């Protein structure tokens, strides 16, 4: 089975946010980066699928050369190959462009199944997986929390507001992975040593221009200063009064 896991290098969740001088992007000075939280789950599911059904796992990213660090980490955990579609600033791309570029690569790899994250925790699109599948003409289940893959088909579960859906789908497919699907493993020392000096192939790709443009980026309006209404249970009447007469939410 040809398995692909897509990962995106995003700012660490601790990142403090400042608007850049041009008012159209964020100032990345001092940021640390990580693979998006849900991509860890995607890679884990890819490796588990290989362990169960055989095959090999390619970790694919559209991103800067620096993403080699994250890719290497996943190779150490058990993925076989890494590929970087070299793009200096993937966060500047709209989800259509990202999905089309990734779909072209996935197709050339001849993948049977692609695991992506539910959402990349930078621009929070939660769209690239579904769009990639649509461009490929494949099945897609989003926000998967349980999965059983077999020959040519699979069954997934996803959580919705009205309950847990069971979804049957045909392969090839794109699955967007949600928390709860698995517990990502850590790399073994042996795995880390084995990939230490591995170079990750960087590739070029046919560009897809953006159709979305940034007008401006702002920080959210500061919340107006609040107040401590009191201490302990004795403060409850003051809180009820404030909620009812000031905030008018009760």
């Amino acid at each position, binding site marked *: 089975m040809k398995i692909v896991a897509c990962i995106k290098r995003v700012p660490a969740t*601790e*990142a403090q*946010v400042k608007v850049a001088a041009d008012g159209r992007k*964020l100032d990345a000075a001092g940021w640390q980066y990580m693979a998006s939280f*849900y991509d860890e789950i995607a890679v884990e599911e890819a490796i588990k699928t290989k362990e169960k059904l055989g095959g090999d796992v390619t970790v694919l990213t559209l991103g800067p050369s620096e993403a080699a660090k994250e890719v290497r980490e996943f190779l150490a955990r058990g993925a076989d190959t890494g590929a970087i579609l070299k793009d200096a600033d993937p966060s500047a791309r709209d*989800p*259509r462009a990202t*999905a089309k570029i990734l779909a072209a690569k996935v197709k050339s790899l001849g993948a049977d199944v692609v695991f992506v994250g539910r959402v990349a*925790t930078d*621009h*929070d*699109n*939660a*769209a690239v997986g579904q*769009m990639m599948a*649509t461009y490929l003409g*494949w099945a*897609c289940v*989003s926000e998967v929390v349980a999965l059983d893959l077999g020959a040519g088909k699979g069954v997934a579960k*996803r*959580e*919705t*507001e*009205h*309950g*847990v*859906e*069971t*979804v*049957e*789908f*045909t392969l090839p*497919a794109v699955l967007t992975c*949600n*928390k*709860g699907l698995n517990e990502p493993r850590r790399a073994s020392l042996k795995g880390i040593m084995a990939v230490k000096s591995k170079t990750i192939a960087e590739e070029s790709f046919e560009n897809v221009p953006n159709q*979305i*443009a*940034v*007008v*401006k*980026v*702002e*920080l*959210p309006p500061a*919340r*107006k200063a*609040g107040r*401590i209404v009191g*201490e*302990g*249970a004795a403060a*409850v009447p003051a*809180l*009820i009064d*404030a*909620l*009812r007469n000031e*905030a008018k*939410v009760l």
Partner: protein
Amino acid sequence: MANIVVYVEQSGGAPRSASLQCIGAALSTGHSVLAVTSGDGADRAAAALGKYGATKAVALVGNAPWSPDAIARDIAKVVTDNGAKAFIAAATTTGKDVAPRVAALLDCPILTDITALSAQGEAFTASRPWLAGKAIATLTSSASVFCATTRPNVFAAVEANQTCEVVTAQASSDGKAIVTSVAAKAGAKLDVKEASVIISGGRGLKGPEHFHLIEELADAFGSAATGASRAVVDAGWRPHAEQVGQTGKTVSPKLYIAVGISGAIQHLAGMRTSKVIVAINKDPDAPIFKVADYGIVGDAFEVVPALTAAVKAARQH
């Protein structure tokens, strides 16, 4: 005036409120709304949409099991057949699943979870959070069809007296992914994304056995949802569907009450756009108080039961 196609979710013929808000958002641009409904009761739901401002509604009927790729194709066809300039759905689990597929079928990008929308003629501008709300980006689209999902509880539904032409069309049935069953949620609890009041608990509650305090306070408000910090979700005390924050759900309820939650940057990112924030924490220096409108410094085990009783009493008057 151009058409905006809005996908309206419904159950048993009753349109979902997040979808009615979505119609409201579309109408606020000055364009007209062509609604699409589907599933059991689609025709009845469609017939009700004039009251919320739709001028036309297409009910996709048929007994086909739910398939996100099949419905996406049906919606994209309505968009194309009617020469619509925009397509919008609510950012619910269904909308988030289906809308990006519609966008791809139209070969257009999508702006998900938008919190503001305007148009000058057929040029649409929308705002949406980045990094779970640490920043807000305002964006324009040069795509042939502007595609977006609207965050629940941000836009207002409108009441109108519009005559709405209802047409039915056959839903397609050849999906590549098909929902074969839905296990209804125990207690039919409200999801945090859609609730107007959320009571969230954190590690300060000391153990899963104490979350009845959170549930009872939620019940006292009538229909509030219960939320949680990542710490308690990771500890297995609460299901991950309840996690609020940068790697959970981003919410904007009318009232958010955080109990025993310290207010880590990743948690704040998910709830700081709530209209009113209340914090209950025994540590007066907890960062949650920096975003709270009202705070009580104290022991949750003492404060929450008293608050539950007081809310019940207040709601009876």
